[in-house]
């Protein structure tokens, strides 16, 4: 039986893991990416997501080196994203050792990028990341770009469906309003998108305790759940989350060795 996945995520800035509350403020250093990747893998992480938030070319190259190192030392799948805007960016990350490449703003600005990447490298390695925020005026979830700074006026479900039509093999869905709050994943948003597309959906944003993972993987209908800070700062561990899910009957990968 296919299992639900628990995915720790790192934001990497110039080769270091950083953690921040909300999209924009309060950055804190959270350690060495390779050491963290190994620790998570040992604890039972099902995949890793690494987001490059470097602004400079130099920082990006540092992050590519991190991707290479993590890919060499860790034997679970690795998704890398952050600033992916061209097919060459996709290729470079795959060559560095990423198994999947996540695109966000770049895909919104140029949806053909999804199609081209899916055609060249296969849809299984194309992840479209969607940052969504409840827009009171629109009365729906709006797609945000550039780390949540800019609203696009586009409705999240519509965009998710379009992205999948263009060749996205997976959707990484982040709730802007929940991100950093630790009050739980955005269940209505996740359910809306998961029900609308025929590819796996990773829910992100808002994880604060192990029960939240249960909620989003059952009621929220997500195929995977992603979190960053609660794992970095050891508020809960992947092992604890998976033990809880297992106890509650959610199918998860359980290593007995």
């Amino acid at each position, binding site marked *: *039986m296919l299992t639900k996945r628990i995915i720790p995520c790192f934001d990497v800035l110039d080769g270091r893991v950083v953690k921040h509350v909300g999209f924009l403020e309060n950055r804190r250093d959270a350690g060495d990416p390779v050491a963290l990747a190994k620790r998570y893998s040992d604890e039972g992480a099902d995949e890793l997501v690494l987001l490059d938030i470097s602004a400079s070319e130099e920082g990006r190259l540092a992050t590519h080196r991190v991707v290479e190192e993590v890919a060499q030392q860790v*034997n679970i799948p690795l998704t890398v994203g952050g600033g992916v805007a061209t097919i060459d960016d996709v290729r470079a990350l795959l060559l560095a050792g990423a198994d999947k490449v996540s695109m966000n703003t770049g895909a919104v600005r140029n949806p053909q990028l999804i199609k081209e990447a899916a055609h060249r*490298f*296969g849809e*299984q390695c194309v992840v479209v990341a969607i940052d969504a925020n409840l827009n009171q005026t629109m009365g729906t979830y709006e797609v945000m770009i550039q780390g949540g700074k800019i609203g696009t006026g586009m409705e999240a479900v519509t965009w998710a469906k379009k992205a999948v039509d263009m060749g996205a093999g997976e959707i990484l869905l982040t709730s802007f309003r929940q991100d950093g709050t630790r009050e739980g994943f955005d269940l209505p948003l996740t359910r809306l998108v998961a029900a609308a597309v025929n*590819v*796996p959906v990773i829910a992100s944003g808002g994880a604060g305790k192990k029960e939240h993972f249960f909620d989003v993987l059952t009621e929220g209908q997500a195929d*995977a759940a992603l979190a960053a800070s609660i794992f970095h700062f050891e508020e809960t561990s992947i092992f604890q989350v998976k033990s809880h899910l297992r106890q509650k009957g959610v199918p998860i990968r359980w*290593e007995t060795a």
Partner: protein
Amino acid sequence: MIALLDLGIGNLSSVQSGFARAGGETVIVPSGEAWAHLLAGGAPIEGLVLPGVGAFGDAMFQLRTSGLLPVVRQMARDGKPVLGICLGMQLLLSISEEHGSHVGLGIIPGTVTRFPSTVKVPHMGWNNLVQVAHHPLLRDIKPGDYVYFVHSYRAQLQNEKHLLAAADYNGITVPAVIGKDNILGTQFHPEKSGRVGEVILRNFVQICIAAQVAEGRAPR
């Protein structure tokens, strides 16, 4: 030494790192010329890996234009262990319906078809293996061990005896490990399947060594 065929795309470095962790020495072979050069240099090639990410048609095209297609056929005929991974496994079959209809290597009879839209496609994530036959490739694999899949198409074997292990995806049987004599394939990615995947890669290394011994050549 195990030859990894480079079809231009795909996660070759991951496969290479995977074998390194499993104690297997590998060499990347990008073309028929490179292959000839290796053999002329006396490289002891004990086995072949056909990795694969990408589209079936493109991969077959690459195999042909790079001059690697005869390499696979030769190794298969010589009884050397060959392991296809993911798309590489699918290439071993007769025909694929991925984006049209493409002829495969036809070493193991069967077709490659897309998952029905009743399930989410790709079949992505960790699923457990149900072993249906004993095979050295599956040595030390315990019932229910999980491996990592990511694929939108699946094999449909003509002959059930070529099925070594399967996975169940919402009621659909996914051939997970297939084999015919020296030709083996895994639909999942052993190089990304944690500890269990490492065991499978190590088993393949052992199979390569055993084949050398059976040929009467001392393993290095």
